[in-house]
């Protein structure tokens, strides 16, 4: 029987909560609920009640019947490394997030909020492909210093959602394909997807292997980085902030926000093109690297994320990787839809639900 499922999706952001209500794949409404200024800087865990009541009040004020909601899905947070998929939120997961066992991050609230509301409404709550998805081969984790191992931190949600969309457009199953997917957003990650598992991916957050992105430095030569650390000008925190949030395209073009890039692209495209050439070159090189991880057995390449809206950049990449496989472009990212679809696959019985242990 084809039953319609209603799924409430919750994506907590630093200054607000993004919610959406889906009926199967169809978004009934989505809304960004801003957080009161005096609450933004309070401890994250103490924000749960406030955010929860804003979400529930919004849904009630719109006039949605809460009994019609079948499941709630939250953006997954910093859990212990797990394989990709849709997880039922259980007590163990809630405890880990409450105790911040694997770190503090606003996405931790996703599962906590979903769980708190689901308890009131007597429905199940899920998370889908959190940032801690780790399906990396052991060999891929090794580095030149035995005590240092590479970590799997990447936008698993969008990478996997794009993998599925790409497979669907090829009339194939995601789990039967070998794909290289480049997500170009605030950070830049290129993943090698082998039969539904991301067996190698650069760490977009810590600067382990990735190309430069909109705001991240990417990989830097060790010697120069060490010099930079010990010349005494900047503290550890300052250097971290600089390499994670103030480098890349931002530093080259001296801009702060994404909209400024759009403006610059319209007014001074020649300057922007020079930087896009660098990004394109590095992304193409990374796609080449991941193709060797897959032993050259690449069914297709996908480019996605915010920066994939620039056709010029896409073309720079495509012309360098076209000898590997066909490249498909999925501009932007739709976190809310990806979360809803992950939950829907479980509700419709198309995918086994996973349990966090």
């Amino acid at each position, binding site marked *: 029987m084809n039953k319609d499922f209603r799924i409430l999706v919750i994506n907590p952001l630093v200054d607000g909560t993004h919610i959406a209500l889906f009926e199967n794949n169809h978004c009934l409404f989505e809304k960004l609920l801003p957080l009161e200024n005096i609450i933004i800087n309070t401890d994250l865990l103490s924000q749960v009640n406030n955010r929860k009541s804003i979400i*529930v009040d919004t849904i*009630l004020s*719109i*006039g*949605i*019947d*809460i*009994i*019609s909601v079948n499941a709630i899905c939250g953006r997954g947070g910093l859990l212990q490394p797990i394989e990709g998929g849709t997880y039922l939120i259980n007590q163990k997961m809630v405890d880990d997030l409450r105790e911040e066992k694997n770190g503090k991050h606003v996405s931790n609230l996703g599962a906590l909020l979903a769980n708190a509301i689901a308890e*009131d*409404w*007597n429905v199940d709550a899920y998370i889908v492909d959190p940032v801690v998805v780790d399906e990396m081969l052991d060999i891929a984790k090794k580095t030149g210093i035995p005590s240092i191992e590479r970590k799997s931190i990447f936008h698993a949600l969008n990478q996997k959602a794009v993998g599925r969309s790409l497979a669907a457009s090829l009339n194939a199953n995601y789990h039967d394909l070998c794909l290289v997917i480049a997500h170009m957003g605030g950070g830049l990650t290129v993943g090698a997807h082998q039969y539904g598992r991301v067996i190698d991916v650069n760490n977009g957050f810590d600067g382990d292997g990735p190309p430069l992105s909109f705001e991240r430095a990417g990989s830097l030569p060790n010697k120069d980085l060490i010099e930079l650390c010990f010349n005494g000008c900047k503290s550890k925190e300052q250097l971290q902030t600089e390499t994670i949030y103030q480098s890349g395209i931002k530093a080259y073009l001296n801009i702060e926000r994404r909209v400024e890039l759009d403006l610059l692209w319209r007014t001074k495209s020649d300057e922007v093109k020079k930087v896009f050439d660098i990004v394109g070159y590095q992304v193409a090189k990374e796609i080449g690297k991941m193709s060797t991880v897959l032993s050259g057995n690449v069914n297709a390449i996908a480019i996605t994320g915010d920066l994939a809206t620039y056709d010029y950049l896409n073309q720079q990449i495509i012309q360098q990787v076209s000898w590997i496989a066909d490249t498909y472009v999925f501009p932007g990212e739709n976190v809310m839809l990806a979360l809803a679809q992950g939950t829907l696959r479980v509700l419709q019985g198309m995918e086994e639900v996973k349990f966090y242990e």
Partner: protein
Amino acid sequence: MKINSNNFNMYEDLFHKLPVGIILINKQDNITLINQTAGEIISSEADHLIGREIQTILKNPSYEQVKQLHLQVEKKDTIKETNQHVVTTYTPFLSNSDTLDGVLLVMESLDNFKQKVSALTEADFYHQILQELLKTDLIAFRILQTDGIELFSSELWKSEMNDDNPYFVDWVDQLAMKTLTARRERSDRYQVESTAMNAVDIITKPIKREGMLSGCIQFLKKEENSALKQQLKITAQMLRKLEKTYQIEDIIGNSPEINIAREQAKIYAETSAPVLLRGEKGTGKAMLARIMHMTSNRKYYPFIRVNSSFFISAADLKEAFVSISKRGGKNGTVYIYFNEEPSILLQNKLLSLMENQPSIRFVFGVKEPSQLAEWHSAFLDELQRYQIVLPALKQRINDLPLLIDHFVNHYNQKYDTQIRKIEEDLMDCWKTMNWPGNIMELEDKIEQIAKNISSFTETVGIDTVKNLPKNPNTYLEKDDDGLSLQMALDQFEREYLFNALEKHQYNKTKTAKALGVSVRNLYYKMDKYKIERGGVT
């Protein structure tokens, strides 16, 4: 201090080099003494000016008040020869016996004066603020002089003042004049005809300086589009209807009967005690149960609705209760509708369920007239403490126009029709009707009209209704509870098929053609609805 020839030279030097021009004028208006600075301002040798009449140098040297009343006068003036602007100060020059010897004129170039003002006062600062205010698109205002002439107006004011509507511009001007004459604040609302801008408020305030009226300021405030608000209200109501998340304002009507029910619902919503809702079918018992849920703090938790037939059909009564209490959660509402008299066993079970699940709020609905007397007394006692009787439509027939208005708005939106008025003949007919299906029947009637009427029809009378295609299912004489959409559709389809078959004497080929379906499809549907085949193929 004694002045000797040495320091006299020094004082003379000082006199000529003062930063302001000094002129002494005698009673005959002739210049008797002038310093070099004054000469420079006038652009002439100081010595050549001695003996000249002041009127030949300045355009408006009025100092009568100085001469007559011995007052000091300050004003702006112009040098005749050069057209340069100056600031002049006239001071009476008095003898020891307080008689006027002449007038002392101190002058300074206006540019100089302005530089000092901007350096020493905050005039520049306020000037800049005003410039910003004039440019902003956040407030619409203008400032007028005492004679009603506009000094300046903000960009937003200019764009809001519709030049195409001279009557409006005139009206705003008149309001300003009223304020200036009355010297007090005046506000008024102007209803603009166009639908884009519905009404504007103009607020006019006088500006006074040291008790003197120096002009007025007018603000323009736009009333948010009320047509849009109305539209939004209807849409929100529609959405609540679709989602069944009714609120207290969704109860339509002002009659005392419905007011009592509404007030009771508000009060009982706050309690946790079980409530009994009584009313004929179609009076809105289920709706009221939901409203009580949405009005209380339980709105954050689920509302479960169950028919008593659910218990009868449930193989295991215990399991049925477990599933209800589970879905009802810890703080939800469970609404149980008795479409038939409950058995003693069921009543006892419900009684114990209520005792075991104190956090769940129970609301019961029964059809009137009901044989309550035959019920198990303990259960009835529990229920009868809080009961609300929903009036039948014929008991509150005065609410009919309001209800019609509500449903017409609703279905106009749904079916994209333009019905504006129900004519009196139809209204009179409806007012005298019995309405066995109550509000549900009325709603059904209006939906049928909206569904079948042309989208341009604005008024509906008896004739319009008579000419509508007859709906075989005009009003389903069924319980309001318990008929799913699919069931209703199936029932409709079945009866429609029957009628079509009858019309064509059970000739399937003809019937299929008339219905626009294949013969195979017709057979499938006949099998589905267990309509016997046979007759002519």
